[in-house]
């Protein structure tokens, strides 16, 4: 717990999972708030899910390829985390449109990038820790993600109710935050997860 790497690993999940669960559990309500009928939205509503799937496979393949090309493990993981953190900001431009296809495309880019970020967040514990600590660190990041999601849902409910009068813009602050939080998470992970004195002491593996 005292190690910055542990915090970085927890943040990697805590700052990204709530955004994905916002998409899985609020997307239909969000679309209706945007003035889109689900009946006509059916053709687009599934796309972000498929994008998430492709993203996690792509992330696994790409980070494997980078390592094969001689990249250090840490750099290969971080490259995909940076890609994910930047890509998830694609949620923000949705505030300018009520076009279903454009919204679905931007959300799909975001979920593709989320999957890249979270796949790396899932492997970080096994990259960094000895096998006896892997499960407890993964457990901590799972708990962090759970608490983060609960807090996020409270805020989503509250702010979308407060801003109900603004109609199609009622979710604007929420999607802006949803785009920025993973970006901040990315910066924190880059700062916290690196080789430190603890690495030299053998408490954490070198990445």
């Amino acid at each position, binding site marked *: 717990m005292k190690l910055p790497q542990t915090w970085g690993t927890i943040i990697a999940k805590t700052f990204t999972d709530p955004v994905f*669960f916002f998409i*899985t*559990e*609020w*997307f*239909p*309500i969000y*679309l*209706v708030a945007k003035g889109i009928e*689900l*009946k006509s939205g*059916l053709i687009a*509503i*599934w*796309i972000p*899910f*498929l994008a*998430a*799937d492709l993203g*996690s*496979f792509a992330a*696994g393949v790409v980070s494997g390829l980078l390592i094969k090309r001689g990249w250090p493990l840490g750099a290969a993981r971080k490259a995909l985390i940076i890609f994910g953190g930047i890509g998830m900001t694609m949620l923000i431009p949705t505030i300018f449109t009520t076009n279903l296809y454009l919204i679905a495309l931007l959300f799909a880019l975001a979920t593709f990038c989320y999957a890249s970020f979270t796949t790396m967040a899932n492997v970080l514990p096994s990259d960094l820790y000895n096998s006896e600590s892997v499960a407890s660190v993964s*457990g901590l990041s*799972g*708990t962090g993600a*759970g*608490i983060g*999601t*609960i807090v996020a*849902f*409270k805020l*989503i*409910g*509250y702010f*979308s*109710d407060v801003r*109900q009068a603004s109609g199609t813009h009622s979710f604007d602050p929420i999607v802006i935050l949803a785009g920025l939080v993973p970006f901040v998470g990315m910066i924190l992970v880059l700062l916290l997860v690196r080789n430190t004195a603890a690495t030299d002491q053998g408490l954490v593996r070198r990445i």
Partner: protein
Amino acid sequence: MATPGPHASSKVRPIPSLRWWIGGLLFASTVINYIDRQTLSLLAPYLKLEYRWTNTDYANIAIAFRVAYSIGQTAFGKLMDRIGTRRGLTLTVIWYSTISMLTSLANGFYSFSTFRFLLGAGESANWPAATKAVSEWFPKRERALATALFDSGSSIGGAVAPFIVLWIYFRWGWRPAFMIPGTLGFFCDGGTC
């Protein structure tokens, strides 16, 4: 959904591809898990109107699921170690399928919250169980791929859910939209027994 009925039960005969049947089964249970889970969020815009929920109310119902889910993921890992993956997986599928079907009887904020809490508890067991099954059935070098396979069931389930759930909703209303997808789990389970 392909369920490897005869193969899965013949543990004694070594079938080279048996583990991939198991992988397929884990994938199927994850797909169904996500379809059952997505039913509520897909119907939420309509249920909100019917029960006059605010988004805060909906958030609280969704949180009921999350709380149980977060606790369950840690708690059920230990249970799976005790009862074994096979029985464990069968139990979780029966649990969440039954709850999903029972949700069609809900009639307001409190009953929805209760059913979602129970669904979250049951569904959370899928991950520790499937991860354990992968570690039991697959050699080390294939584990990453097998995990990726069953885990992708969540996005596939999320992608097909709108078609199944909304199609049923537009035709027959929201109660069958919980009831019918809920039965899917029993087909999957039938395959293992």
